[in-house]
């Protein structure tokens, strides 16, 4: 079931002709899902259920996700000029991978 949500960006790009709208849907959905997941993680940490090693791993994965999101932002903004769909697709794939890595990391030890 979790895998299905991870497939979101691929489905979006394949399904629709308007690349910019699809990029928005992908990025907005990714940010929403990550935000919800991180809120859950935050509740877990605040409840004292995590240890320092786990927190370090999640923080590292979250920072990596943020780097991917910033790269996606730059690529989306430059897409208006470049119309480079391949670059946009590549960046969204990288963002998807970063999102998946973060969520998998949290779920690897969150009960």
């Amino acid at each position, binding site marked *: *079931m979790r895998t299905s*949500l991870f497939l979101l960006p691929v*489905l979006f790009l394949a399904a629709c002709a308007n690349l910019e709208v699809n990029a928005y849907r992908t990025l907005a959905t990714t940010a929403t*899902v990550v935000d919800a997941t991180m809120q859950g993680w935050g509740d877990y*940490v605040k409840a004292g259920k995590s240890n320092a090693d786990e927190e370090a791993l999640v923080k590292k994965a979250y*920072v990596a996700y943020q780097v991917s*999101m910033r790269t996606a*932002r730059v690529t989306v903004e430059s897409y208006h000029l470049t119309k480079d769909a391949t670059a946009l697709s590549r960046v969204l794939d990288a963002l998807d991978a970063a999102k998946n890595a973060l969520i998998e990391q949290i779920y690897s030890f969150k009960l």
Partner: protein
Amino acid sequence: MSIVEIIALALVKYGPQVARAIYDIFNKPSPTQEDWDKVFAMAEKSYEDYVKK
């Protein structure tokens, strides 16, 4: 997988607030600059923003 199925999965996994947010995302025919800014602002929250008491 249809959008309806994705929203249903989000509802089961993340709850009604996230499902509603995804529904709203897909119902935007054309995102505005404000919509884009909100997305990127969400991703700029620091790790500490989530875990600090």
